[in-house]
């Protein structure tokens, strides 16, 4: 079980409010990602759930029980830190055994769980090494191993992949997703990387300045961002947000259109512009197009083999059904 509910939770650091009153429900077995820019309060929120920080107001419930006053050790949650936070003076085996030792689990069962975790995480050959002798990816696996053996109600991940290089990050992303499928335990994952959020989450919580901007499945957020912030934050490259006469034409303050929802044509279209910088990814190419009368260039996605060059004149037509309209308060218009 791992059903977590935050009711009216608020957090102040001294006179500064980092999280204004907030409610959130995390269903059992879900993979929930907290995403937002640096300093948006996502890590603080995770630490409030973990019990590493005390809430200023409100209640944290775990499986229907009030856990607000419980110390971290009593909440049956396991955490994986950004810095791995392994115990450098202990071998991998002892690192993984540590939570079980603290829980006074019999030696035999400890051995059994260590063997199993090491097998799952490909750490069997490294059990007698010290953390200092491992690579970043292996260290992260040890940290995950240490979390698994506790058989927690939920796993908390605090930006666990940000210290890894790009290739390893993709690999570990898949491993964590697989682990979630296999264990079916609630996981709460904090990241500033919206690609990680999109690829891993059942449910994404977008945070900005301590406030939840939107909660939903990755595709819900992608297709129907509730406000400008979510529209700009989710999706890579980001959504084109256009102001002024273009927006007025659609009866909005700002209109948003994703790069893949703009049709490119050499002959005719709604907007005319010249090709600027392009990014060739092989499967796709993203062009920055300087459209006449627009303040900022528009990003457009085209096939990988489209033959366009810097300075070419092209025509663009946005798909009207995929247009997102926002009002003066940056809220989505129906």
């Amino acid at each position: 079980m791992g059903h977590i509910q935050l009711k009216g939770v608020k957090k102040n650091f001294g006179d500064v409010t980092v999280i204004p009153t907030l409610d959130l429900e995390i269903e059992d077995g879900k993979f929930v990602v907290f995403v937002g820019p640096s300093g948006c309060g996502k890590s603080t929120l995770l630490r409030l759930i973990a019990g590493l920080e005390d809430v200023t107001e409100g209640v944290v419930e775990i499986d229907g029980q009030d856990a607000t006053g419980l110390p971290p050790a009593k909440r049956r949650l396991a955490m994986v830190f950004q810095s791995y936070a392994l115990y450098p003076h202990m071998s991998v085996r002892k690192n993984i055994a540590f939570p079980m030792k603290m829980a006074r689990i019999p030696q035999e069962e400890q051995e059994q769980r260590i063997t199993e975790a090491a097998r799952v995480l490909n750490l069997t050959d490294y059990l007698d090494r010290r953390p200092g002798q491992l690579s970043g990816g292996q260290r992260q696996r040890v940290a995950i191993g240490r979390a698994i053996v506790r058989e927690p109600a939920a796993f908390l991940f605090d930006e666990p992949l940000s210290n890894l290089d790009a290739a390893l990050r993709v690999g570990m992303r898949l491993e964590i997703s697989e682990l979630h499928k296999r264990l079916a335990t609630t996981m709460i994952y904090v990241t500033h990387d919206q690609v990680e959020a999109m690829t891993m989450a059942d449910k994404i919580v977008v945070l900005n300045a301590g406030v939840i901007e939107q909660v939903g499945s990755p595709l819900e957020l992608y297709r129907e961002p509730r406000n400008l912030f979510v529209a700009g934050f989710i999706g890579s490259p980001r959504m084109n947000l256009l102001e002024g006469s273009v927006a007025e034409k659609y009866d909005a303050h700002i209109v948003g259109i994703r790069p893949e929802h703009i049709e490119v044509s050499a002959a005719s279209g709604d907007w005319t512009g010249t090709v600027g910088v392009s990014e060739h990814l092989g499967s796709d190419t993203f062009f920055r197009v300087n459209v006449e009368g627009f303040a900022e260039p528009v990003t457009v996605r085209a096939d990988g083999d489209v033959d366009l060059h810097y300075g070419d004149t092209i025509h663009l037509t946005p798909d009207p059904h995929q247009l997102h309209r926002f009002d003066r308060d940056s809220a989505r218009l129906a």
Partner: protein
Amino acid sequence: MARGVTISRKSVNTIAAGVLGLLMFFPVLWIVILSFKTEGDAIKAPLEILFGTGWTTESYGTVQARSDYFKHFSNSLIISLGSTFLGLLIAVPAAWSMAFVPAKRTKDVLMWMLSTKMLPPVGVLVPIYLIFRDLGILDTRSGLVIVLMLINLPIIIWMLYTYFREIPGEILEAARMDGATLREEVVHVLIPMAIPGMASTVLLNIILAWNEAFWTLNLTAAKAAPLTAFIASYSSPEGLFYAKLSAASVMAIAPILMMGWFSQKQLVRGLTFGAVK
């Protein structure tokens, strides 16, 4: 050559460093030399002492016969180890709380602790003497353990605080998440990680306590007198006995000098801990 250090420049530096080292070591060397002379020879002119006189171990024999070296030695041992151990018991929790749960005024508290070291000890001699007299702990080893622990406590706390600050907070939080109680967190994670720093703290404090002469001389008479009092007893109003004084000094500093020699690697490592990552 990165800095253009020439051979001649290097040799000048080496010679200068050697001379400086010799200057610093010379008093100790001179004490050792004098301790192997007779009282008559020991007051002669320096060059005559070095080249014109014989060598003898008689001062050592006299010193041991006149005053019980081993009693003083064991007093020194108990007082320095005892005060360091007691200091650690108090300093570990204090440094832990200041390093990991600092409050607004933690820095002020640290400065205040250090400021007590700036106070001349003689300023508080009378009140402390009176307190010791009333408590009946004058000339007792436990009394000295307490007073030396107190005077060295700021240093122990400061050193431990610095070492603890080097330990990432996330590791302690991980221990907390792993179900460790505060005691388990300190015993299983914090202390093992701070061992190098703690070792040099212990070594330095044993040395400081071993060499402490103000309180040990003023608060003891015969029973609890450590080696500092043992040396002092040879500079009497009746006249100085250079050879015996030197022999006593050599016997008093030899143990701590040897300990310092064998642990210098640890000491230097601990004192520069965290300076280079």
